[in-house]
């Protein structure tokens, strides 16, 4: 049905190319969804606590933002590859394989998007007045309840913004992904990898251009969605 619907708009695209689009959406969704709780936790710790090694944690989180993506991808291959320390352990214990699988693409996208997600959420947490949290504590709420009933609802616009930013970043991730899981059509070929492949072959421009249009459409949709959700949540919190 999807082919029928979109075939008219994008006549040159075959099932393989559509699979790349769907794979990108799937990879980005899981990358965002699974890293979100960790992102919130890390942002909270960085925003609210002073501890030994805070700068090191902050640096580690931001590393993917400043390292060349190829380097990040290679480091992922070293640690999460089948012979890597963590990758080997995960395969033997849970049968979970990352290298050259779509799960690896999701991991690479999550790692690359993580700094952006944490930054957005951290800003939102820092905007929550700790005095409100104190007030909740005096009313009998333990730390976990304070977080669930006061901090989390008030930082929600930032969490949503961070999640959508991460999703958009994951959709566009290329360098680390291609290094870590390669570019196997139908298996690990994401939207950016597919565009790259078409640009490598003569006459692939038309197909590449159609994929570019799809990428732009998805990115804009995500952007508008985040604006809209963020604004309606903010309105609900402000109570007007």
């Amino acid at each position: 049905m999807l082919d029928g619907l979109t075939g008219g708009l994008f006549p040159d695209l075959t099932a393989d190319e559509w699979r790349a689009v769907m794979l990108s959406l799937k990879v980005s969704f899981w990358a965002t969804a699974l890293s979100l709780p960790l992102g919130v936790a890390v942002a909270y710790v960085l925003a609210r606590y002073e501890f030994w090694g805070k700068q090191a944690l902050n640096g580690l989180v931001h590393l993917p933002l400043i390292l060349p993506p190829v380097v990040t991808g290679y480091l992922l291959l070293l640690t999460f590859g089948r012979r890597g320390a963590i990758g080997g352990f995960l395969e033997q214990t849970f049968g979970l394989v990352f290298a050259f699988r779509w799960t690896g693409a999701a991991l690479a996208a999550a790692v690359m998007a993580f700094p952006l997600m944490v930054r957005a959420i951290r800003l939102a947490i820092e905007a929550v007045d700790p005095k409100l949290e104190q007030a909740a504590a005096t009313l009998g709420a333990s730390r976990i309840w304070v977080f669930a009933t006061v901090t989390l609802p008030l930082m929600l616009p930032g969490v949503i913004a961070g999640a959508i930013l991460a999703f958009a970043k994951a959709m566009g991730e290329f360098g680390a992904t291609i290094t870590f899981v390669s570019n196997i059509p139908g298996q690990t070929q994401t939207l950016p990898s597919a565009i790259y492949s078409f640009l490598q072959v003569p006459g692939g421009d038309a197909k590449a251009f159609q994929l570019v249009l799809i990428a732009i459409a998805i990115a804009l949709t995500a952007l508008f969605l985040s604006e809209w959700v963020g604004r309606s949540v903010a309105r609900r919190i402000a109570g007007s």
Partner: protein
Amino acid sequence: MSLLVQLSHRFGDFALDVYFEAPAGVTALFGRSGSGKTSVVNAVAGLLRPDHGRIVLDGRVLLDSGRGVSIPVHQRRLGYVFQEGRLFPHLSVRQNLTYGRWFAPRGPGADFDHVVSMLGIEGLLERRPGALSGGEKQRVAIGRALLANPKLLLMDEPLAALDEERKAEILPYLERLREETAIPVLYVSHSMAEVARLATTLVLMEAGRVMNVGPAEAILSDPDSVPALGIHTAGASLHAVVAAQDEDGLTRLEASAGPLYLPRVEAAIGTRLSIRILAQDVILSRSRPEGLSALNVLPATVTAVRLGNGPGAIVQLRSGDDLILARITRRSTLALGLAPGADCFAIVKTVAVARINVGAAG
């Protein structure tokens, strides 16, 4: 109920060193800004952990640094009304009010409808805090603290952020709170008028130390505490009953020493009021004055005189059953022979009594 507070804490150059015991009722911590009042309340709440200290409420140890005991904030069961309200912006007024209920142990507690009607916030329940005025926010904040069934209510300058009109709007609710609930209150303020209206016990603080502790009426009518209270704001309170609402806009009250006229007080005939007369608004005369515009002339007997270092003097007088303070010059004190035992008349202009100084008798 009794509250024992013993604290010492250093913040840079400032040293807090406090000890006092408070009985039931409203205990006011009074002192200038920066005298350490808020730190004391925060330590009682558990928001500030002092270097050393011991806090015991009704035999329950909240803090004992010597034995390493410090009950976490959320287990202390104290209601805290902050200066800025601190209502949760994402919850409705009703949800704010019931917030503490989730965490309070099951059992009989403050009745929602009663608290809501006592504070006059029935019409606000479905609104958001962002749509409330300053005075409304504070009333909701008081209700929220009460409905958590606290063992002690802490109030840190709850009226300081409001203008005079809003203060006058909320003070009667606080007086009702004092009369209608048995919950003890620790009240921080630097406003003499608020303290005089609400406090049953007074803790005078200065530069991190307690200068004096005692029943509020005794301290407020003690000439020796005038320097600490501020010579412009010191004054004792008279008790009087509303006797008549005159047609020319005055209210006639009966004090134990005679009639008292005030600008219209909106209270039913028979209501007992407490009227604070500022020491600097009182004139003394040895003989009953005639041809005088001031309406209030109360016969009185001098009970104490305190000569200050400057040109002023504070005279304490007994008028009927009440004590009044008068701030006059040292020269007049000597010229009129105002010594303990001397009879005289205390004269107070009707219009000198500000609205905020007329409250329900506690």
